């Protein structure tokens, strides 16, 4: 299954595609016999021996003295950690262009983005055979890059995988998941990273992971998700639905989910509210960049470090989240967003009551060129997440699968399952990939 690259080859690929914020210094394990399977951790997961900077300059030099639980569990299985994959600062982005440490390039076309925020993770998976990348999703950060880089991206139910050692973005939204090239690896590694961990109470209430067969027979496609799609994406997704019916004997039904239109606003309110409190801890004392000018008043001391080291998108989201929580606006934004989340959850429950999965394209377009991303307004970039945000807001497990190619670039479809029913996602992954011809970038062969 595993075919590890030589250290020279890995270094070469990293120079070309900027996969890692930090790569393992000692790559001699790649020459072990029998070969050890490799994995990578997104830069917001703590791993001993590496800095954990979450793509942010403010965490420069922070070396955690412990492993995040999912990292530790992978290492316990004998997996070789190749490095920390590049990402948007703290997960704030859709294209991985908001990193403080260079920008990962799409393995299918280096002039295009990998997607975000787990962009480096998707690039590593696309480029390295047998590689397993640990990604993290808050609002679509696994699905989006999986779609743009043509790999499988599994985001488990909120609380399935311990968040201990994960640098928080939005505590009620963050989920650690997997990116792989094949469905068999998902089946192998999901049980390894899943399960209760006393160090993360939210992981302790989960029902046991059940991977016994659950055959997908009937899926729902919400009409509301079929708007504003690029024409290539629309036709690729339509062919995929046809193939599901013709080749896999799955009944595809259109449904209406009117509450989906509120999900994006609710998500950005909750995510930025939580992020703005989480990021209060980065103030030049405790983590990363240290401000030595202690003769200052604490307000100036904190502001100086934060202003100089947070990137533009981080500042924008801190401002947005701080505003949404302020007295006078809290009910209109934060409390309303919490209510909308329940509405969205109820709507998924209603639809998933008589369907095994909800299917949509993953992203409304293929991986964009960097020049086009530069022209996007912040709101336009947020709106690109309109298909990945709903299941993330609702904490539902979901999977992005490659379902077609346009202009040589991958298109993804996203399947959403009921809470804790990851096995339905594995079923669709296994059946789909048994017949769909996946492509990998030329350079990876």
């Amino acid at each position, binding site marked *: 299954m595993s075919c590890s690259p030589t250290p020279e080859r890995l270094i070469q690929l990293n120079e070309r595609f900027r996969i890692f914020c930090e790569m393992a210094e000692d790559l001699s394990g790649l020459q072990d016999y029998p070969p050890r399977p490799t994995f990578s951790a997104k830069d917001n997961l703590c791993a001993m021996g590496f800095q954990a900077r979450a793509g942010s300059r403010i965490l420069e030099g*922070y*070396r955690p*003295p*412990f492993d995040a639980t999912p990292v530790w569990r992978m290492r316990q299985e004998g997996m070789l950690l190749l490095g920390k994959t590049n990402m948007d600062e703290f997960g704030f982005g859709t294209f991985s262009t908001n990193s403080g440490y260079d920008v990962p390039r799409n393995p299918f076309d280096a002039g295009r983005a990998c997607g975000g925020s787990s962009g480096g993770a998707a690039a590593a998976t696309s480029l390295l055979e047998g590689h397993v990348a640990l990604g993290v999703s808050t609002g679509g950060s696994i699905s989006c890059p999986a779609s743009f880089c043509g790999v499988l991206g599994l985001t488990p139910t*909120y*609380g399935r995988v311990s968040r201990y050692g994960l640098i928080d973005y939005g505590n*009620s939204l963050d989920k650690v998941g997997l990116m792989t090239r094949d469905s068999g690896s998902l089946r192998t590694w999901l049980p390894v990273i899943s399960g209760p961990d*006393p*160090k993360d*109470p*939210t992981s*302790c*209430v989960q029902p046991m992971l059940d991977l016994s067969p659950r055959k997908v027979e009937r899926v729902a496609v919400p009409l509301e998700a079929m708007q504003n799609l690029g024409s290539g994406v629309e036709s690729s997704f339509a062919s995929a639905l046809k193939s599901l019916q013709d080749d896999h004997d799955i009944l595809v039904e259109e449904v209406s989910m009117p*509450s989906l*239109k*509120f999900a994006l*606003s*609710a998500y*950005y309110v909750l995510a930025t509210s939580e992020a*703005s409190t989480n990021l209060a801890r980065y103030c030049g*004392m*405790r*983590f990363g960049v*240290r*401000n030595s000018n*202690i*003769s*200052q*008043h*604490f307000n100036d*001391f*904190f502001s100086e470090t*934060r*202003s100089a080291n*947070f990137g533009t998108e981080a*500042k*924008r989201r*801190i*401002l*947005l989240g*701080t*505003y949404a929580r*302020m007295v006078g606006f809290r009910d*209109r*934004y934060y*409390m*309303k967003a*919490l*209510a*909308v*989340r*329940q509405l969205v*959850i109820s709507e998924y429950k209603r639809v998933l009551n008589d369907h095994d999965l909800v299917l949509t394209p993953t992203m409304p377009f293929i991986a964009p060129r960097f020049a086009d991303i530069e022209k996007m307004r*912040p*709101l336009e970039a947020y709106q690109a997440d309109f298909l990945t945000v709903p299941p993330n*807001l*609702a*904490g*539902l497990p979901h999977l992005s699968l490659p379902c077609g190619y346009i202009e040589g670039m991958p298109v993804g479809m996203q399947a959403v399952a009921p*809470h804790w029913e990851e096995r339905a996602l594995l079923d669709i992954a296994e059946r789909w990939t048994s017949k769909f011809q996946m492509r990998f970038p030329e350079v990876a062969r």
Partner: protein
Amino acid sequence: MDIETVRKVARVARLRLTPSEELQFAQDLEEVLQYFSLLDEAPQVDTHDFNPVRVADVLRDDEPSRDVNAERLRESMDTYDDLVRGPRLS
């Protein structure tokens, strides 16, 4: 969002913005907040929860234990003897 509000929020968030940042964020956030006003149309629901799935407090046994060596944590901080150095409070 007007510039005055941006300044006020930035102060609360301990961010010092340049005049061009103030202008840029005022425009960006105005656009985003206008989009958020869609939330006003969402139907009211009585229940709200802070998490998407039910979570419960899980406490460990009340026995002293140490996860991480405090000495190691202090290595990355500005310390004097055994104390952490910080800025003035007043």
